[in-house]
């Protein structure tokens, strides 16, 4: 399905090892710097809440990929662990606010994590016997079960209104307050970096390596001494733990948890974002979480159909780019290393331009259809692509359709050149 999760250890020559280690440390350091500086660079008022959402999504998606990409387990119910961790964290926060518990906000995600771990172990005890379709169905069943139970157990789930909490009422640790979005941002950033490092580390442990082996060939793994079920169970518990941390961060950020946060929609969202990002690479879920959250918040300002566009993007990824965005980037690594990347820019830009034209056509048509279906009979114009469009006349329909056809034809014409350029640029050095 996808290429190995990480480039394997380089040759034993010590300088090469040291170089690789330096590169890794540099990467982590760069990540920390970027994250620290980001809110000062992007100063739009709506930016920080979106970045908080991204941070939570990153932790959630990384935890999900421990199952899907690393373990070969497709789950349709992963939001259960985020949700349960979040609810437990919210209740804990309420207890802390009433001085029943000494629990400062920075430690709250751990409480969520422990909650996620507990339920991960509980549900994992019977879910992990098999991977594949059976696992997916069990995860769906458990997810729907929890979502339905949430309407019954009102004391824990708060019924229709959910559970609210107030992060400003909790005791302070080292005087750190979390009243503004930006303060919460740094907390989320800390936890995102910490959990990412931990999850990366997990993938390099025997449990993590055997998870890959069991994904590839569970039968053979049993014949080299490992119980496939136990290996999956360890991954499942770990992923529940980190999903619970994401839930704790969720509780801190939004200060409310509802049953919807545990349901199929949320579980589907994390599947989409992880897959779009690329399940075969550690960076994949991170990229996917950022892109997905960005598109979701950007698009929902302009159109009610953002989920359709994301769904189409998802289908396109499954059909044509199964390695995801990360895979797409990694595919260009040889060209980059050989210094031939610049040659790709021209053909790529041309294809992308035509693709953009076709996309404008599709979006225009879809938006106009939406308008016809949803808007009242009195309105006849719509704001589309910064123009006022008279939807009830024929002219815009023809225009967008023409854009679609022209764009698709042009992209089709330009694509072979781009592909050829890619092959040329990726050629191993030294060959004619």
């Amino acid at each position, binding site marked *: *399905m996808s290429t190995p999760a990480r480039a394997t250890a380089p040759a034993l020559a010590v300088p090469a090892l040291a170089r690789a280690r330096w590169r890794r440390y540099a990467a982590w350091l760069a990540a920390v710097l970027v994250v620290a500086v980001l809110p000062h660079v992007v100063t739009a008022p709506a930016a920080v809440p979106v970045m908080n959402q991204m941070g939570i999504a990153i932790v959630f998606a990384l935890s999900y990929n421990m199952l899907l990409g690393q373990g*070969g387990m*497709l789950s*349709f119910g992963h939001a259960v662990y985020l949700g349960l961790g979040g609810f437990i964290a919210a209740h804990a926060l309420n207890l802390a606010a009433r001085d029943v518990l000494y629990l400062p906000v920075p430690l709250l995600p751990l409480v969520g994590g422990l909650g996620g771990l507990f339920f991960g172990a509980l549900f994992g005890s*019977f879910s992990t*016997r*098999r991977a*594949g*379709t*059976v696992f*997916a*169905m*069990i995860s*769906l*069943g*458990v997810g*729907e*079960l929890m979502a*339905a*139970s949430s*309407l*019954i*157990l*009102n*004391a*824990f789930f708060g019924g229709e209104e959910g559970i609210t909490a107030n992060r400003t009422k909790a005791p302070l640790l080292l005087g750190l307050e979390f009243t503004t979005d930006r303060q919460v941002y740094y907390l989320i950033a800390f936890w995102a970096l910490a959990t990412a490092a931990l999850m990366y580390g997990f993938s390099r442990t025997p449990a993590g390596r055997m998870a890959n082996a069991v994904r590839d060939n569970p039968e053979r793994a049993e014949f080299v001494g490992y119980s496939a079920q136990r290996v999956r169970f360890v991954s499942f518990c770990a992923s529940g733990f980190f999903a619970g941390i994401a839930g704790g961060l969720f509780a801190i950020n939004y200060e409310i948890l509802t049953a919807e946060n545990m349901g*199929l929609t949320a579980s*589907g969202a994390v*599947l*989409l974002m992880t*897959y779009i990002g690329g399940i075969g690479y550690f960076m994949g879920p991170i990229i996917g979480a950022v892109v997905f959250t960005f598109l979701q918040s950007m698009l929902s300002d302009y159109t009610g*159909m953002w*989920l*359709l566009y994301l*769904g*189409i993007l*998802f*289908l396109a990824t*499954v*059909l044509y780019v*199964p390695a995801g965005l990360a895979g797409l980037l990694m595919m260009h690594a040889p060209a980059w290393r050989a210094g031939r990347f610049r040659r790709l820019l021209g053909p790529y830009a041309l294809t992308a331009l035509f693709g953009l034209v076709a996309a404008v056509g599709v979006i225009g048509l*879809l938006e106009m*259809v*939406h308008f016809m*279906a*949803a808007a009242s009979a009195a309105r006849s114009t719509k704001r589309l692509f910064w123009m006022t469009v008279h939807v009830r006349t024929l002219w815009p329909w023809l225009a967008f359709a023409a854009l679609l056809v022209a764009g698709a034809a042009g992209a089709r014409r330009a694509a072979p050149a781009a592909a050829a350029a890619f092959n040329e640029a990726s050629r191993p050095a030294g060959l004619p």
Partner: protein
Amino acid sequence: MFELIFFSVLNGLVFGMLLFMLSSGLTLIFGMMGVLNFAHAGFYMLGAYLAYTLSRYLGFWPALLVAPLLVGIIGALVERFGLRRVHRFGHVAELIFTFGVAIVIEEIVQLVWGRPAKAYEVPALLDFALFRFMQTSFPAYKAFMLLISVAIFVFLFAILTRTRAGLIIQASLTHPGMVAMLGHNVPRVFMVVFGIGSALAGLAGVIAGPVLGTFPGMAQVLGSIVFVVVVIGGLGSLTGAFVASLLIGIVQTFAVALDISVGSVLAAAGLPPLGTTGVLHELWQVTVAQVAPIMPYVLLVLILIIRPTGLFGTRET
């Protein structure tokens, strides 16, 4: 009391046969291609919406014929241009793909028809009470639903067991590789079966739309239950799908009708209540009707743990 039982059984039968119409298509697709089609309930929804629109221009009866046909064609196209590409990446990738299709179908329905529920009405011809028993009447339309479902069942059974095409399909259910070796165009068989399965789902939508409601959430409401039916009945077994559909249909209908609390049921069995407040107390106060939506999922999880091949099935993946 007897009235309640009588109508619950009847309604349960109607619902159960509807579930069978949905699950038969799903189980055929699964049995043959190994794909659990997440988008199946989406085709059910498409059937209802298409029938709604068509019935406004052509009338209910033409729509009854045309809408499932349209849905079947869409299904065949999805298989031909989508699923077939993903097939080589394995079952997990196929599941992921059909999940994406489900999302896109639901969004397109909302795009074209809007979010509010549609007033898809029972046709005037059938809008009367078929008979009255004690205080309650049984609508003729429900009898019509039952009739169509049984007709489909008989039709499927006849085709699968009496025709050559049916034999090929049955063979492909268990030995697709061998069937290909024998010279049959298995990809085309897959496409046809996927199309027929989708058309069946569409037909279920056409007849259920007026009764169960035509709204964007209708796929999600029934989708999971259909999975439960197929898994409990046994992945790939039509008999299992039939038995499980009726079982779940009747049990669900009964459970929803019963307003007894779980606590009183357990008390009748001799178990004392747990506590007077908090979570456990809530569990005891819960009525059977409230628990009813959960029961299928409990059954699903239990079956997958105890007997993943289901009641009648022979394969798990």
